[in-house]
């Protein structure tokens, strides 16, 4: 058996302003380096998986990409590196792996990893936080016309099938599909205009 990396639950002494409602959270406060690659893996696998899931939106791809990151990164990893350096390295690897994933799958970049922005999320590993992306999504939903907002809420947030969503909105399945498509296009256009 392997020892899990030790974590301590504590209040963040100076939480960022937008995190004021989510305390306490878990944070590494002891040890600058990992004892071995397994400690590095166990401390970071959830972080990398969560990051990948938020970028691909499905479990099979998130698992594949997480595996790809660790297989590429752990071999050449220097254990004398600090935990922060290990995470930065994993993040840089994840960025490349994700870019390659989209190039293979769609020939277009769809989602990205920003090492500067995402390293903070990786370090501040805690209970799931919707972050700025979540707030932006809700702003867009709120701004959509009623029927467009409703179809997206039913499908994405309330986990309804297209048939269930059609029944809830009292439209045919075909109409529900058209509504969903138009709603997504409008929301995507709005997302492009948001800063």
């Amino acid at each position, binding site marked *: 058996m392997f020892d899990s990396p030790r974590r301590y639950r504590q209040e963040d002494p100076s939480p960022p302003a937008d995190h004021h409602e989510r305390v306490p959270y878990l944070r590494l406060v002891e040890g600058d380096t990992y004892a071995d*690659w*397994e400690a590095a*893996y*166990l401390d970071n*696998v*959830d972080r990398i*998986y*969560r990051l990948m*899931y*938020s*970028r*691909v*939106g*499905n*479990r*099979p*791809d*998130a*698992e*594949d990409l*997480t*595996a*790809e990151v*660790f*297989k590429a990164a*752990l*071999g050449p990893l220097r254990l004398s590196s600090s935990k922060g350096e290990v995470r930065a390295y994993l993040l840089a690897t994840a960025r490349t792996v994700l870019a*390659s994933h989209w*190039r*293979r*799958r*769609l*020939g*277009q*970049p*769809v*989602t990205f990893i920003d090492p500067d922005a995402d390293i903070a999320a990786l370090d501040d590993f805690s209970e*799931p936080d*919707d972050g700025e*992306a*979540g707030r*932006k*999504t809700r702003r*867009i939903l709120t701004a959509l016309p009623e029927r467009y907002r409703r179809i*997206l809420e039913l*499908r*994405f*947030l309330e*986990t309804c099938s*297209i048939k269930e969503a059609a029944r809830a909105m009292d439209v045919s399945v075909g109409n529900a*599909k058209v509504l*969903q*498509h138009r709603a*997504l*296009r409008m*929301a*995507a*256009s709005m*997302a*492009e205009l948001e800063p």
Partner: protein
Amino acid sequence: MNPRRVAAFVDAVLSDRRPAPFKADPVDANVLRLAIAMRAERPGQEVPEPQFVAHLREELAQQIGGTTTSPARSVVTRRARFVFAAATVVTMLGGTVAATTAVENALATATSSTVTYDKLLRVGQFESTGGHAVGEIVAYRGDPSWVLMSIREPGMNGPVVCRIEMSNGHTAATGTFVVHNGVGEWARPISIDVGMFRQATLVTSAGSVLATARFPGT
């Protein structure tokens, strides 16, 4: 804009399935980006399954320890791929339900032991001359033994020859298939021991090398 492909992609994401690849344009990408962001809003999927974490740790231990040949992809995801591959091969070869069952049983057994797994299955990743991954080749030793390869490379089109070489330098098998819009697959039964496979090469009909896959441990 490709509404049907985009809709299928969104449906797959909503069902937590792996979406099928297609050639997207920037408008498609914008829609899919939003759909992924909204999907990620749904709680409950953020944590990896313990089984996945354990299997990946086992694979990494083998890779880093160097005690056995390292599989190219995750055990968890490979099994799903192999079952799919087996089903595809059996369908393509006109096999029976019994054959499918036999293959699936072998795979189920294989997942319980990586050593057993490596005796049954070999996986190589095709890398282009530019160094990026363009597909995979899977060789299975069983009854029947078979080989399957899959290409996913946007921009690739036309006939492609796949040549499999053995460790003694002889050619084990060749096959020609056509890549449409960057997607192509080829499969066939094989009577040669897949343990002797060294590498597979994809070449154009004009003879130019497109990609090469090396089997681990050779």
